[in-house]
C-alpha cells in the first residue's frame, strides 16, 4: 500500500460542498433504530472472550488527537477520544457522539450542540462545553503546531487565531488575536455554540474528525508532551489506554466512565505495531491476531483463497507524476504517448492481483461523479504521438529516469512500466529507487523526471483529487500550471448546483487526463486484508474505517 502519512478525513458528504448550499439537511436522515441494526443478532457473543487483536502496522508517534497525522495513530485516537458527532460504521452518516442532538440556524452559520449530561472523562470528571471550547483553543494555538488546525478554519476567527504571529503574504507579522473573537462559545455546561465564518455544508463531518475531540487540558498542563502515557492519559471515548509498550503492543481497555458503555462489547483491544507484513501474516495464521489491514504481496495467491481475506473498493489512486518543466516531458504529446502505451490491465491483473481497478482517469468514481474515461491503451496512436513529438520509433528519445520509493510493490509496477515503454515505444527508461525521505525531497523539489505517487482522498468529493493540480498547489509537484484548469477548479468551488459542479469537475479532469497529462494514472486502490470470522460488527467502507465501539467477538465454532 501507500505510505501516506495523513489522515483520511471522513467527510461523508457531499453533493454540495461550498457556501450557501444546503445546510446540514443534506445529510440523509438516519433511521431511529440504526443502533439496533449494528448489534449482534444473538447473545452468543457473551460466551466469547471480548479481546480483539489487530496489526496497526506501525508504532504510533503519539496519541494526542490534536497532533497525530498518520493512519495508525488515527486508528487508536479515534477510539480513545470521542467527538461531538461521530459516523455510522457502515454508511458513514453522522450519528450523535458527545452531543446528543444539535441545531443549525437557518442561515447555516450557527451550530448549537447539546452535550450529554452523562458525558464523562475516563477519570470520572464531567465533560462540559468548556472542555470543547478550551480544547479547540489548544488546537488553534500557534505553539501547538497542529497540522490539522485548519479543520477548524470554517469557524469564525479560527484562521486568524491560528495564524497570529506568523508572517503574512505581505511579509508583515499578523497581529495577536484574543480567543474571544473565535466563534466558539460555551453557553452553559452542556451547550456549545459554534459560529461559522461562512456556511459550511460539511461542518458536521469536520466535527466528527479526531482533531476536534476534547483533550484533558488539566492533564496536559501537568505532564506536557508526556500526558499520552497510560499512567496519565485521560480520555472520553469508548476505550482508554491500558498499556503502551513501544514497538511491542498497545492495549486499550473498555472505559467504564463512557456514557454508552453498555453498548461497547469489547473488553480489551490489542494493537500490534508489526511493520513486517510476513511476520504479521504468520501471527494471523497462528491465531495471534484477528485483523490485518494489509497483506504481503508475494503471498497473495495463497491469501486470496483464505476465507478470512477481504477486498473492497478504496478512495485512492496510484499514479505517476511527470516533471513537465524539463525535456522531454514538457511536451504533452510525449506524456500522452507514455500513458497510452501502457496496458494497465496487465499490471493489475497479472502483477498486483488483488482486484485493483486499472484506471486511465484520476478520480475514483464516487456518488454523483463519474470520471471521464481518459485515454485507453492504443499502441499505434502512442507511437504516432511520439513520432509527432520528434521521436519516431523512440529514436532520439533521451534516456529518462523513473523514481520510486523503495518498496517491493512499487518496484514491480515500475519495472513493468519500463518494460512496456521499451516494448511499445522503443524508449529506454532507467530506474532509481530512493528511500522514503529522499524520494519525498526529490519529488517536492522537482528533482525527477517521472515519479511514482499515490493520493488517498480526504473526503468523498472530486475536489480532494483535482484541486491538488492547480498552479502552485502544495501537492502539485509536477511543475504543471494551466490557467484554464485553475479557472475550472475555482468555478467548481463557486458552483452551487451539484450537477453543474460535477460537470465542471469532469471538464477539468478531462483537461487533466486527456489533453495535458501531467500525471499518468495507473489504478484505483482496493482495501485488502484478513479478518477472523469470529469478529462481528465490522463493515467495509471506502474509508477503511472500523470503529472499535461497534465490534464484538463471536465464540469460535
Amino acid at each position: 500500500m501507500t505510505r501516506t502519512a495523513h489522515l483520511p478525513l471522513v467527510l461523508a458528504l457531499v453533493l454540495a460542498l461550498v457556501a450557501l448550499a444546503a445546510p446540514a439537511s443534506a445529510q440523509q436522515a438516519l433511521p431511529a433504530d440504526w443502533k439496533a441494526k449494528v448489534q449482534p443478532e444473538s447473545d452468543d457473543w457473551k460466551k466469547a472472550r471480548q479481546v480483539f487483536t489487530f496489526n496497526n502496522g506501525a508504532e504510533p508517534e503519539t496519541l494526542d488527537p490534536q497532533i497525530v497525522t498518520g493512519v495508525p495513530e488515527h486508528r487508536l485516537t479515534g477510539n480513545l477520544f470521542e467527538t461531538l458527532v461521530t459516523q455510522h460504521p457502515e454508511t458513514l452518516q453522522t450519528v450523535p457522539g458527545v452531543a446528543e442532538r444539535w441545531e443549525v440556524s437557518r442561515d447555516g452559520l450557527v451550530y448549537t450542540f447539546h452535550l450529554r449530561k452523562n458525558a464523562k472523562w475516563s477519570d470520572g470528571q464531567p465533560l462540559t462545553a468548556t472542555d470543547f471550547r478550551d480544547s479547540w483553543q489548544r488546537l488553534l494555538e500557534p505553539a501547538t503546531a497542529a497540522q490539522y488546525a485548519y479543520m477548524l478554519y470554517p469557524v469564525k476567527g479560527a484562521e486568524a487565531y491560528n495564524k497570529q504571529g506568523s508572517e503574512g503574504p505581505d511579509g508583515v507579522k499578523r497581529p495577536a488575536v484574543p480567543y474571544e473573537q473565535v466563534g466558539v462559545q460555551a453557553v452553559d455546561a452542556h451547550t456549545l455554540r459554534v459560529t461559522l465564518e461562512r456556511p459550511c455544508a460539511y461542518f458536521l463531518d469536520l466535527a466528527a474528525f479526531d482533531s476536534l475531540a476534547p483533550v484533558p487540558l488539566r492533564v496536559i498542563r501537568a505532564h506536557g508532551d508526556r500526558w499520552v502515557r497510560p499512567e496519565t492519559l485521560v480520555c472520553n471515548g469508548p476505550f482508554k489506554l491500558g498499556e503502551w509498550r513501544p514497538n511491542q503492543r498497545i492495549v486499550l481497555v473498555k472505559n467504564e466512565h463512557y456514557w454508552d458503555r453498555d453498548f461497547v462489547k469489547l473488553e480489551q483491544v490489542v494493537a500490534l505495531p508489526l511493520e513486517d507484513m510476513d511476520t504479521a501474516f504468520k501471527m494471523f495464521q497462528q491465531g495471534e491476531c484477528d485483523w490485518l489491514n494489509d497483506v504481503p504481496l508475494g503471498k497473495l495467491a495463497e491469501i486470496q483463497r483464505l476465507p478470512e481475506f477481504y477486498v473492497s473498493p478504496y478512495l485512492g489512486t496510484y499514479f505517476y507524476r511527470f516533471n513537465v518543466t524539463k525535456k522531454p516531458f514538457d511536451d504533452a504529446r510525449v506524456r500522452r504517448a507514455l500513458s497510452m502505451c501502457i496496458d494497465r490491465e496487465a499490471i493489475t491483473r497479472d502483477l498486483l492481483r488483488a482486484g485493483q481497478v486499472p484506471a486511465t482517469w484520476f478520480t475514483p468514481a464516487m456518488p454523483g461523479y463519474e470520471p471521464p474515461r481518459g485515454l485507453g491503451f492504443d499502441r499505434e496512436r502512442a507511437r504516432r504521438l511520439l513520432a509527432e513529438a520528434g521521436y519516431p520509433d523512440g529514436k532520439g528519445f533521451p534516456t529518462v529516469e523513473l523514481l520510486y520509493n523503495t518498496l517491493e510493490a512499487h518496484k514491480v509496477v515500475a519495472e513493468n512500466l519500463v518494460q512496456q515503454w521499451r516494448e511499445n515505444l522503443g524508449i529506454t527508461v532507467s530506474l532509481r529507487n530512493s528511500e522514503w525521505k529522499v524520494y519525498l525531497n526529490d519529488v517536492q523539489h522537482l528533482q525527477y523526471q517521472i515519479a511514482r505517487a499515490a493520493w488517498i482522498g480526504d473526503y468523498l468529493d472530486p475536489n480532494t483529487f483535482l484541486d491538488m493540480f492547480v498552479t502552485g498547489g502544495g501537492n502539485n509537484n509536477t511543475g504543471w500550471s494551466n490557467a484554464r484548469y485553475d479557472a475550472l477548479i475555482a468555478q467548481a468551488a463557486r458552483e452551487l448546483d451539484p450537477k453543474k459542479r460535477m460537470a465542471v469537475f469532469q471538464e477539468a479532469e478531462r483537461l487533466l487526463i486527456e489533453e495535458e497529462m501531467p500525471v499518468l494514472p495507473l489504478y484505483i486502490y482496493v482495501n485488502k486484508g484478513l479478518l477472523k470470522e469470529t469478529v462481528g460488527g465490522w463493515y467495509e467502507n471506502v474509508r477503511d474505517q472500523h470503529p472499535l465501539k461497534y465490534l464484538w467477538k463471536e465464540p469460535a465454532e
Partner: protein
Amino acid sequence: MSAPAETPPAAPKKGTSLWQDAWRRLKKNHMAMFGLVVVVFMSALAVLAPWLAPFDATYGETWLGAQPPRFDHPDVLNRNFLAVGHPPTHIRPGYEDARTITFEVDETQETEYRVRVQRRRVTEIRRVEGAIKIDRVDATSPGDVLVEVREDGSRGGPVTGAVIETKAPLPEAFGERPASFVMIVRHAQRAKGPVLYTAHLENGVVLDLTRDGVGIDRMEVEGRSVRKVDVDGTERRHTHWLGTDLSGRDLLSRILYGGRISLLVGVIATIVSLVIGVVYGAISGYAGGKVDDLLMAIVDILFAIPYMFLVILLLVNFGRDITILFVALGAVQWLTMARIVRGQILSLKEKEFVEAARMSGTGPAGILFRHLVPNTLGVVVVYTTLTVPAVILQESFLAFIGLAVEYDGQSLDSWGALVKSGMDALGSDGERSWLLVAPSIAMALTLFSLNFLGDGLRDALDPQQRGRT
C-alpha cells in the same frame, strides 16, 4: 599498541618458490580446490551472463506469473503485433527469416470472481477486478462456462448452465466440497473455438495477414491467450529451466545477472578496500614511530564506528548508485587490511634485501612499493578472498533493509535481493520454493567456495598463520 594478530610471519623464501610451494600445498587441499573450481566457474558465468542467459532477464512475461522449473509455453510476448508492411514485433531472435507465422488464439472473454462459501451456502460473490460485490453469476447462456482456477493455477473442468447466487448453495456441478471455502471462478463467454491468425512474411516484413482465413490489416493478441505458435510449420515453445518469478521473468537468467552484480560488488568493494588498506598500512608500517602510532590510532578509532551505520548514511546521502555502494562497502573494509599489511611491513623492513635496496640508492617510495609491498602479497591475497564473501553478504543485508542499489538503472537484482524476494514469495506450505532455493544455492555455494578457497590459501601460503586474523 595491541597487535596480537600480527606476530611476525616466517621469512619469505624467494618469490617463485614461495608461490610454487603454495600451489603445491593448495592442490592437496580438496576443499580449497573445489572452492577454486566453483569460484572460477561462477565468475565465468557472471562475466558471460549476457551471452549465457537464455532470456532477457529484465523482460517479464507478466501473464505467466511465478511458474515452477521446467515450465514451458508458446514463444510469444506479452502483446504480439503483426501489421501488413511492418516487421513483426518480437524481440527474440528467430523470426527474421520466417516465412509463415501462425498463432492459435483463444479469444474467450473472461471475468474472474471470488466466491465465498460458508456452511454450504454462498455468502459473497465479488468480481475480482475492483472488488465489486455482486449477487449472482449467470452462466446459463449458450456457450457460457464457469471454470474454477485451482490453487496450483490449473483449471478445473468447465461447468455449463450453472448460476452461482448469494444465499443459495453452490451448484452441484462443482462437485463435493467442504462446508466453508473460497473458490476463484472464471466466467467465460466462449467464442466458437480457437482463432487462427496466419501471416506470410518476406524479408522480415508481413506481406499478408489472415484471421480464420479472412484477410486483415493488423492483429494484436495478448500472450496469455495464445495457445500455440508455429513458425514455418514448427511449433515454437520455450522452457524456463529454473521457472519464473512473480513478474514472469526467467529465473535462470536473473540468477546469472544476479551473480554478475553480487560478484561485481564483492570484487570492486574489495579492491577499494585493498588499495586504501595496503597503501595506508604500508606507509604506517614503513614510517614507524610517531607516524605509525598516529595512523594506527586512527584505525583503532575507526574500528569503533559502527560500520553498517556508516554504509547506510553514505547510501542515504549520496544516492543509491552502485559506485557509492562500492566505495561505501570498501571504505569500511580497509581497516583490517591496513593492520595486516602494517604488521607485515614492520617485520619485513628489517630484512637484508631492504638494506640492499637502500644501499643501491632506491628511494623510500621505491623500497616500499617495489620491494616491501610485493612481499606482503600472500597475506593480501588470503584476506581478499575472505573479504569478497563478506561484502556479498553485506550487500544482501542492505537489500533486506530496503537499500538495494539499482544496477545501471535496470530491473536486475543481486543474489541477495533475489534471495530476499524468494523469501517473500515462499508460501506457508512451501509453495514457490524454487524462487528461494535456486538463488540461495547460487549465493551460498559461491560464498562457501570463496571461504574454502581463502582458508586453503591461508594454509598454503603461510602455514604458521593458520587460524589467525
